[in-house]
C-alpha cells in the first residue's frame, strides 16, 4: 500500500442555480484518495457528500450545477476540465460508481450477464462471446452462487442484496483504480449490509482499488474505512484515520455524530428505555437519561393480538387462476400493556409492517383477533371503526410522503379534530398550537406548507397530528429510520418524553436494532411472517436464543474501528420467501419459555 494519492481534489466548489440565485452545496472541499485505501466521506443529508462524488464523475447536469475548484487530479488529468468524450473513457473504466438503490441501477430488460459484458465490450474492445465469459467470472468474483446459470437471468429474479452484487460486478469489471460507492448499503437489510461491506473490503484488497465510500452511517465507517473525512454544510470539518477520529474526535460536530450512533449493548444493565444525550452534552450520565417506569403492568393489556394471520392474493378471479398467496403474517400473538413499548424487529419482507397495518386496520386480518381494551376490532366497520381510530394511530416512515403537500401544517393537524367533531374550528386552532408546542415546534409554523420543513420537523408534525386524537397506542412504522442520526436521536427522545407525559403505548416497528434497544420495553423478532422470539428487551439483547435473532444482532455494525477484526462472517443466504401455494397451512409452532416472558420458537 503506497501513500501516493490517486485522486487529489483541491478546493472543490459546487453550487446549484435556482431562480436566479446560486445556492452553494460544497464550499471549498479538499481531500485526497490514496492508492489501495478506503476513504469515507461522512455527513448528514445535504452536507454535499453525494454532490462531491457526482461532480468528480461529472454526472451533475451543468446547469443548474456550477462546478469550480482548483482541480480534481486523477492519474495526472484534471477531471473538472476534461471534455465529455474524455470523461466517457474514464467513467466505468478508470473510475466506477455504485449507487444506493440496487433496484433502479440495473436495466430491467437486459440479462445481468450482458449488462456486465457491455463494460468489457465498451472499454476493453472485447467481442460479445469473450465478454460474456468474463461476465460470468465477475459474477463469480462477487460471490453469486451458480454464476454461469444466473448470468442469463433478468434483474427482477435477484434480491436487493444480489442486485447490489451485480451492480458492484459491473462497476469493477473494467478493473478501475477508483470505485466510488454512494451509500451502497443504505437501502439494504443489516445482514445483507454486512455481506456487501465484507465483499467491498475483500474486493478492494484483491483488486487493489481505492474506494471513496460515501455514507451517513458512522457504524459503517468504523467497519470499512481506513481514513475518513467528516463533512458538514459543504465543508470538511475533520479528517484523519478512522481509528484516530473514533478514539479522539476533535470537532464538536464529529463528537455529536459519533455519540448519536446507537451502540448495541449500550443499554446493558438498564431496565428502562433511555434517551439519547442532548447535542453537545454527550457526557451526560446515564442516570439523567434513563426514563422512569411507564409500564402499567397490573392493568388490563391495552391491545392483545391473538393468532393474527394476514395473507395477500390467491383469491381466484375471472381472469386469475388460483395460485399462490403471500403469507405476510402467520399466527402472530402478542400483547401490549398501557405505557409500554413493544418493538417489532426483522428484515424487509418479514411481515412486521403488515402486522402494524392490520392493527390499525389498513390491512384486513385473514384470521385471528385483535382485542383493543378487550373488544375485538378485527371485523368492525363504520362508526365503530371511526371510534377505534381515535384510540390507535400510526406514524409512517417517510416524513416527505406522509403529509398532503397542498395543505398547511396547521390545517393538517386540525383535520382529524374537525372530522371527529371533537372541537369546533376555533378551539381546534388553539389545540393545534398546543400540539405543535408539545412536539417542539413553534406556533407560527402552523400556517406553513410541508415543503418548508426539514425531514425531522415533518416527522414531528406527523406525531402532532397522530396525537391530536389523544390515542392510547401509536404504531410507529420505521418512523425514525429515514432520519439523520442527530435528528433521529431528537425524535426518539421526544417520543419517549411523550410516553412519560401521556402514558402512551407504542408498537415500534423497526429494522434498526440499536434504536430498538433504546426505546423498547419488550422486543418481538419476526422472520418470514412469524414471531421467532419475544421477550423483555434485556433478555432478547442479552441472551438471544433463536439463531435468526443471533444473526440479526451479529450483523449490526459496531461504531468502533478497533473491533473491526470481529468481522462476523454472516452466511450467504437470502431471506426465503413467504409465498406459499394455495391452501398451505403452516406447521404447528411450539414456543419454549427460556426465562419469564422470554419465548423462543422451537426449530422444526
Amino acid at each position, binding site marked *: 500500500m503506497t501513500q501516493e494519492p490517486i485522486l487529489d481534489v483541491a478546493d472543490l466548489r459546487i453550487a446549484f442555480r*435556482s*431562480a436566479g440565485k446560486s445556492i452553494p452545496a460544497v464550499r471549498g472541499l479538499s481531500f485526497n484518495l490514496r492508492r489501495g485505501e478506503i476513504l469515507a466521506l461522512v455527513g448528514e443529508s445535504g452536507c454535499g457528500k453525494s454532490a462531491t462524488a457526482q461532480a468528480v464523475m461529472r454526472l451533475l*447536469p451543468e*446547469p*443548474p450545477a456550477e462546478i469550480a475548484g482548483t482541480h480534481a487530479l486523477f492519474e495526472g488529468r484534471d477531471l473538472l476540465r476534461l471534455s465529455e468524450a474524455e470523461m466517457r473513457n474514464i467513467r466505468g473504466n478508470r473510475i466506477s460508481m455504485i449507487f444506493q438503490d440496487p433496484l433502479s441501477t440495473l436495466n430491467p430488460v437486459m440479462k445481468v450477464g450482458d449488462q456486465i459484458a457491455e463494460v468489457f465490450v465498451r472499454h476493453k474492445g472485447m467481442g460479445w462471446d469473450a465478454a460474456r465469459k468474463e461476465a460470468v467470472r465477475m459474477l463469480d468474483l462477487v460471490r453469486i452462487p451458480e454464476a454461469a446459470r444466473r448470468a442469463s437471468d433478468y434483474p427482477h429474479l435477484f434480491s436487493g442484496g444480489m442486485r447490489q452484487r451485480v451492480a458492484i460486478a459491473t462497476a469493477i469489471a473494467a478493473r478501475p483504480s477508483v470505485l466510488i460507492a454512494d451509500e451502497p448499503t443504505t437501502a439494504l437489510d443489516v445482514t445483507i449490509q454486512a455481506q456487501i461491506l465484507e465483499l467491498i473490503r475483500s474486493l478492494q484488497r484483491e483488486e487493489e482499488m481505492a474506494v471513496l465510500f460515501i455514507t451517513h452511517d458512522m457504524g459503517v465507517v468504523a467497519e470499512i474505512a481506513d481514513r475518513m473525512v467528516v463533512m458538514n454544510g459543504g465543508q470538511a470539518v475533520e479528517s484523519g484515520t478512522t481509528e484516530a477520529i473514533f478514539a479522539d474526535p476533535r470537532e464538536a460536530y464529529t463528537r455529536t455524530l459519533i455519540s448519536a450512533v446507537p451502540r448495541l449493548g449500550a443499554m446493558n444493565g438498564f431496565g428502562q428505555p433511555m434517551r439519547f444525550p442532548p447535542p453537545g452534552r454527550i457526557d451526560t450520565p446515564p442516570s439523567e437519561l434513563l426514563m422512569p417506569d411507564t409500564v402499567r403492568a397490573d392493568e388490563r393489556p391495552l391491545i392483545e393480538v391473538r393468532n393474527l394471520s394476514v395473507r395477500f392474493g390467491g383469491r381466484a378471479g375471472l381472469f386469475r387462476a388460483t395460485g399462490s398467496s403471500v403469507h405476510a403474517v402467520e399466527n402472530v400473538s402478542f400483547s401490549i400493556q398501557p405505557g409500554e413499548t413493544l418493538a417489532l424487529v426483522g428484515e424487509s419482507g418479514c411481515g412486521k409492517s403488515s402486522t402494524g*397495518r392490520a392493527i*390499525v386496520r*389498513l390491512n384486513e386480518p385473514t384470521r385471528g383477533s385483535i382485542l383493543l381494551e378487550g373488544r375485538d376490532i378485527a371485523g368492525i366497520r363504520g362508526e365503530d*371503526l*371511526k371510534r377505534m*381510530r*381515535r384510540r*390507535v*394511530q*400510526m*406514524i*409512517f*416512515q*417517510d416524513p416527505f*410522503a*406522509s*403529509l*398532503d*403537500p*397542498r*395543505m398547511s401544517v396547521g390545517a393538517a393537524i386540525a*383535520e*382529524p379534530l374537525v*372530522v*371527529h367533531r371533537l372541537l369546533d374550528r376555533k378551539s381546534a386552532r388553539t389545540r393545534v398550537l398546543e400540539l405543535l408546542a408539545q412536539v417542539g415546534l413553534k406556533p407560527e409554523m402552523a400556517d406553513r*406548507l410541508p*415543503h418548508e420543513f426539514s425531514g425531522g420537523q415533518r416527522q414531528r408534525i*406527523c406525531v402532532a*397530528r*397522530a396525537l391530536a*386524537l389523544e390515542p392510547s397506542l401509536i404504531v410507529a412504522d420505521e418512523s425514525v429510520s429515514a432520519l439523520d442520526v442527530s435528528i433521529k436521536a431528537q425524535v426518539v427522545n421526544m417520543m419517549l418524553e411523550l410516553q412519560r407525559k401521556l402514558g402512551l403505548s407504542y408498537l415500534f416497528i423497526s429494522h434498526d436494532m440499536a434504536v430498538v434497544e433504546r426505546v423498547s420495553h419488550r422486543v418481538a423478532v419476526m422472520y418470514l411472517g412469524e414471531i421467532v422470539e419475544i421477550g423483555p428487551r434485556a433478555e432478547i439483547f442479552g441472551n438471544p436464543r433463536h439463531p435468526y435473532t443471533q444473526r440479526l444482532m451479529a450483523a449490526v455494525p459496531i461504531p468502533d474501528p478497533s473491533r473491526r477484526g470481529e468481522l462476523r462472517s454472516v452466511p450467504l443466504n437470502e431471506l426465503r420467501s413467504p409465498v406459499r401455494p394455495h391452501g398451505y397451512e403452516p406447521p404447528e409452532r411450539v414456543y419454549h419459555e427460556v426465562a419469564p416472558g422470554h419465548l423462543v420458537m422451537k426449530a422444526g
Partner: protein
Amino acid sequence: MTGWPAFRRRFLRNPAGVFGLVVIILMILTALGAGLLFPASPLSITGDPFIWPGQSPAHPLGTDILGRDILAGIVHGARVSLIVGLAATAIAVILGMTLGVCAGYFGGLTDVVIMRLVELFQTMPSLIFTIVVMVSLTPSIPAIVLAIGMTSWPQIARLVRAETLRLRNSEFLLTLKVLGLSDLRIIIRHLFPNVTSIVVVTASIIAAQAILLEAAISFLGLGNPNMISWGSMIGSGKEALRSAWYMAAIPGMAIFVAVLGLSLFGNGLNDALNPQGTHK
C-alpha cells in the same frame, strides 16, 4: 420553490405558452365583444358576394358566396368555438375526474366497471359518435357540447385513475385513513387538489380537440344552421374553393390559431407545473 409567484414566473418565461395565453385572451375578448363590433346578424347579407379581402374597406376580410361579411362571421364564430370548447371540456373534466378518482381509489368492481366504460368510449370513433348524437338530437349547441363532452372524458379519467393509484398507496393517504377520515372527505379534500395540475394540462388539449370536432360537425352541416361557426363557414366556402379559396382559408386560419394557442398554453402550463421535467 413553489407557490403562485414562482409558477407565474416560470410560465411567463416560456414565450410559446405566453403566446397561447394571449390567443386565448383575444378569443375571449372577441367573443364577448362580438355583439358590439357587429350588432347585425352575421348571417345577414351585407354586401356583394365574392369581395376579396382588402378590396373593400367596408369588408376588410371580404364577403362569401351570398355576400355575408367574413370578419363578422369570424368574430361571431369565436363565440361558438369558445362556448363549445369550454363547456365540453367542463363536462369532460367533471365526468373524468369523478370517475377516474373513484376507479383508482375504490378499485375492485368499481374500477372494473368504470374502466370497461372508458374502453367502450375510447374505442368508439369520436367523430362518428358525435355525428350520431347530433343526428338523433336536434342540432343545437347543448347537443354538440354534450356529444363532445361524452367522448372526451375517458382521457381524463385514465390519467386521474393512474395518478390516484399512485397516491392511494402513498403514506399520506394511509395516514388520512388511519386518522378516520371518510372516503368522501379524502377524495374531495385531498385527492382532487392533488390531481388538478395534471388535469388542467389535459383540459386545454381537450378544449382544442373540442373546437376541431365542432368545426368538423358544422362543416358537415350537422350543426345549428341558425348559428354561424368557423366550421360552417368553411363548409359554405368549399363550394367556391377553386375561385375564392379565401372563404374557406380565413376561418381555417382562425381554427388553426385557436387550436395552436390552446395547445401551446397547455404545454406552457405543463412545463410551469412540473419544472423538473423540462431541464433534464
